């Protein structure tokens, strides 16, 4: 047999639970995505991204009102052999999906992903409610909204129109796990953290926790071959990839060796000394690999390849609308927030804090996501002089010490919260410059993540830089960040405006299209004039690949593309 091709990869943080239902970080997502399969996935090359089938036979058949989805499964998909199945492969059926989705609502498991289906499927919430009362989830109770027509066919009945369910079904937590496995290996919560058994292209091989994860090819995986169309956006590059890969068996790489390296320096030195084949070039290291967004010549000369995309992530600043100092809809409060927004130099932030690794974004939906408007012009432009005048006008007078006070003469002090790590410090330093520019005193509160999350949920933070990464590439996933009913959930700015909520609810029921986009623009503008939040930028994702890597192109939504690529070492 030919030698097994091996790809070496680096993750910057330790993995967590390998149970997809409990997936909450994208590093672990890399692994679970390789081991488990969802019904749908995304086309490797298509841009903007396009849904494709994974274990489903075809894309879902959606009714005109967007309330019924008919899903057909590919026959002959098998879970990898495991003692839980008597050591044999076990065929995947729609019951496995139904079971996996029900799991999200099991109170014992306390999955952080239940929101994906919450309030959507007819009868599922009632079952969840009942489980909450009894403390036990009845997996055998039928859910009217999840109609299993046969082993391979499922019809989903939704409570209200939703045209993005297909994308949700492509999201990692919706992957199929086998009930036998959960029952055999589940811990007291019913979590299978360390024994992943899926239908995916890879299965877990050797594993040293927190240090090294090896994935091996699932040789029993259904036969697939590489066959993709070039995208319109970068056709030339895609054609090169197609030349390299077309017709090959999936996967080409039989073994993925992942090492976990926390420190930037270690990671970079590892990659450049050839100990890794694919490398996620994140912020602090960007200048080492890139100059002006392009691969540095010395790296290019070594044949290193760069794949750079804009991540579907929105970074924005919010001010807590319920805060007595910065919050509220009064004109003087709006003026304060707008002045702050106008005094903040986003370009400097991109340049210095992110090392140029982000693209300025004025619209709250990032590029690559359904609903993004590339032509939208922001209102909150950098203009500190104007900002100062605005403050003067609204009575934020400067005291003897040079610092401004509130219009009622009380001291004005802003608490900017950031995380307890290097990036948080940088961010705070930049914001301090902004506030100093306005003559406003700022203090930086640095907290650990859980404390921030807690304060945020309770609407106790004053202001902060927040990032939202698309769970699925639809604008709804971003606009819900400002929806009034999501306060105490993830509307961290605690923004609630009846007009906005009304528009949001209307947009929620629309299929993607110009009509919904128009509504989104209004919503974006409303956010701006009230200065409840200010969109700032989307990060670039720059991936470096060693010369031996073939067919590599970073996908905006998929965590990794291992099964689509090949590697040909010269030696």
């Amino acid at each position, binding site marked *: 047999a030919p030698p097994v091709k091996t790809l070496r990869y680096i993750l910057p943080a330790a993995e967590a639970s390998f149970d997809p239902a409990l997936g909450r970080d994208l590093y672990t997502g890399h692994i679970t995505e390789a081991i488990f399969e969802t019904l749908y996935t995304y086309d490797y090359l298509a841009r903007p991204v396009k849904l494709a089938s994974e274990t489903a036979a075809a894309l879902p058949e959606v009714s005109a009102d967007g309330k019924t989805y008919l899903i057909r499964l590919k026959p002959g998909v098998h879970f990898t052999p495991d003692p839980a199945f008597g050591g044999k492969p076990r065929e995947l059926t729609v019951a496995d999906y139904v079971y996996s989705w029900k799991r999200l609502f099991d109170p014992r498991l306390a999955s952080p992903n239940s929101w994906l289906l919450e309030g959507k499927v007819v009868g599922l919430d009632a079952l969840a409610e009942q489980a909450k009362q009894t403390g036990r989830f009845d997996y055998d109770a039928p859910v009217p909204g999840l109609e299993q027509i046969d082993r391979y066919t499922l019809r989903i009945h939704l409570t209200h129109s939703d045209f993005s369910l297909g994308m949700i079904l492509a999201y990692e937590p919706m992957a199929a796990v086998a009930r036998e496995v959960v029952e055999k290996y589940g811990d007291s919560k019913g979590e299978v953290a360390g024994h992943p058994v899926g239908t995916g292209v890879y299965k877990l091989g050797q594993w040293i926790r927190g240090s090294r994860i090896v994935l091996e090819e699932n040789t029993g995986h259904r036969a697939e071959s590489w066959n993709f169309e070039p995208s319109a956006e970068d056709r030339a590059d895609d054609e090169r990839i197609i030349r390299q890969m077309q017709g090959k068996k999936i996967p080409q790489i039989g073994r993925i060796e992942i090492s976990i390296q926390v420190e930037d*320096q270690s990671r970079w030195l590892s990659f450049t000394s050839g100990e890794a084949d694919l490398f996620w070039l994140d912020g602090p290291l960007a200048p080492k690999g890139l100059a002006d967004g392009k691969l540095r010549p010395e790296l290019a000369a070594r044949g290193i390849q760069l794949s750079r995309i804009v991540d579907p992530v929105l970074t924005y600043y919010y001010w807590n609308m319920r805060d007595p100092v910065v919050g509220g809809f009064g004109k003087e409060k709006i003026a304060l927030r707008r002045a702050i927004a106008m005094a903040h130099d986003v370009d400097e932030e991109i340049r210095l804090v992110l090392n140029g690794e982000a693209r300025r974004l004025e619209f709250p939906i990032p590029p690559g996501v359904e609903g993004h408007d590339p032509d939208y012009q922001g209102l909150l432009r950098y203009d500190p002089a104007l900002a100062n005048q605005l403050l003067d006008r609204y009575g934020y007078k400067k005291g003897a010490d040079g610092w401004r006070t509130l219009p009622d003469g009380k001291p004005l002090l802003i608490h900017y919260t950031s995380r307890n790590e290097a990036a948080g410090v940088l961010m705070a330093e930049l914001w*301090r410059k902004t506030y100093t520019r306005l003559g406003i005193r700022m203090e930086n509160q640095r907290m650990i993540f859980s404390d921030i999350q807690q304060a945020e949920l309770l609407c106790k933070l004053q202001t902060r830089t927040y990032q939202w990464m698309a769970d699925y590439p639809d604008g709804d996933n971003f606009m819900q960040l400002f929806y009034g009913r999501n306060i105490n959930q993830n509307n961290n700015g605690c923004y609630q405006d009846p007009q906005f909520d009304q528009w949001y609810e209307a947009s929620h029921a629309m299929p993607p299209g110009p009509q919904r986009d128009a509504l989104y623009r209004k919503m974006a503008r*409303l956010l701006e004039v009230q200065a409840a939040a200010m969109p700032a930028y989307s990060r670039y994702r720059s991936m470096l690949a060693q010369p031996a890597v073939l067919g590599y192109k970073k996908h905006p939504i998929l965590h990794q593309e291992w099964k689509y690529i090949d590697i040909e070492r010269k030696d």
Partner: protein
Amino acid sequence: MTAVVHAGSPGLWLLAWRRLRADRVAMVSLAVVSAFLLMLVLSASGLIVADWEAEVGVSYAPPGFVGATPASSETAVPAAPAQALPENPFDPLADDIRALRAQLAPAAAGAVEMYGVADPLADDMAQLRGATATAGAGSLATAAGSGAATHAGAARRPTLPFGGDKWGHDVIKKTIKGGETSIVVGLVAALLAVSLGTLFGALSGYWGGVVDDCFNWFYSIFTAIPSVLMILAVAAVLQQKGVLTIVLILGLTGWTGPYRLIRAEYIKHKSREYVLAADAIGVSHWSKMFTHIFPNVSHVALVQMSILVVGFIKAEVILSFLGFGVPVGVVSWGSMLNEAQNELILGRWWQLSAAAIAMALLVTAFSLFTDALRDALDPKVK
């Protein structure tokens, strides 16, 4: 140090001082330490490096003796145009803004499509923009940038004497300012730790019995828990981040060393004949503890203090690494080293070197001085 020598009891301290004087290494170290302290006083009183936050150079300006790097937009901030623009001298994108503004000015907000959303501040903005367009330049330039941090008008320099950091701060000034924080943290935290340790050690060693058991209990708990965890735990309790917090973290976790030594000294001394003699003439317990015994063990406290100062200056680096460093707007050697962590692989060695060298210099001098001090104060050597 000299103040202490003369203030206390001239006899023995003077003797120690003479012995120190004879030690050349000690005197050189003392000179270095004094120089640092002088720098600390000057920078704390704002006589020097008050403007360390001024962004005088381009981002990561290399040291003057190395020479400027060929400009590439990721390091070099485009210097403000020579004829400072009246509209907005801070703006790196001044040209675009000017173009945009020229386009916007006539109809104020009208140029931006509002999609039917009403702007509550539309009138204000229009008026202010109008005023801006007509008013002279100067008034606006001064209206902005009140906090004095930004060093705007002047062009940023491509090189700085010992390089610049991310923001373009002068690394030398930053190092001096950082030294101020680090040394103050070291000194105050050591003072706190030694005071606590001495007080507890004195009570424990002198009284013995239940008091001793009690303090020993605390001591064994504090030493049984690894210091890193202890630091993280104390840091978690003291939610507020600030220099005071660092001092408290270090002080509250660092008292065990002095405690152990001082307690041992008190146990030794309390049965010494001079203490018995004091007892025989009717001296009170308090006076025995602090006027009789303490001066005799104070050298231990002093040496501990200087050892801890060194230790704490180093510990601050690790605290910074763990995210419990100084707050924003304050700089310390720890925060500099931590910031510079990733700069070395980017080929920007100057901030790392500046902080590391300054720290090494002070710490070396302090340690050598401590060694000499310990010898000078050691009763055995008399």
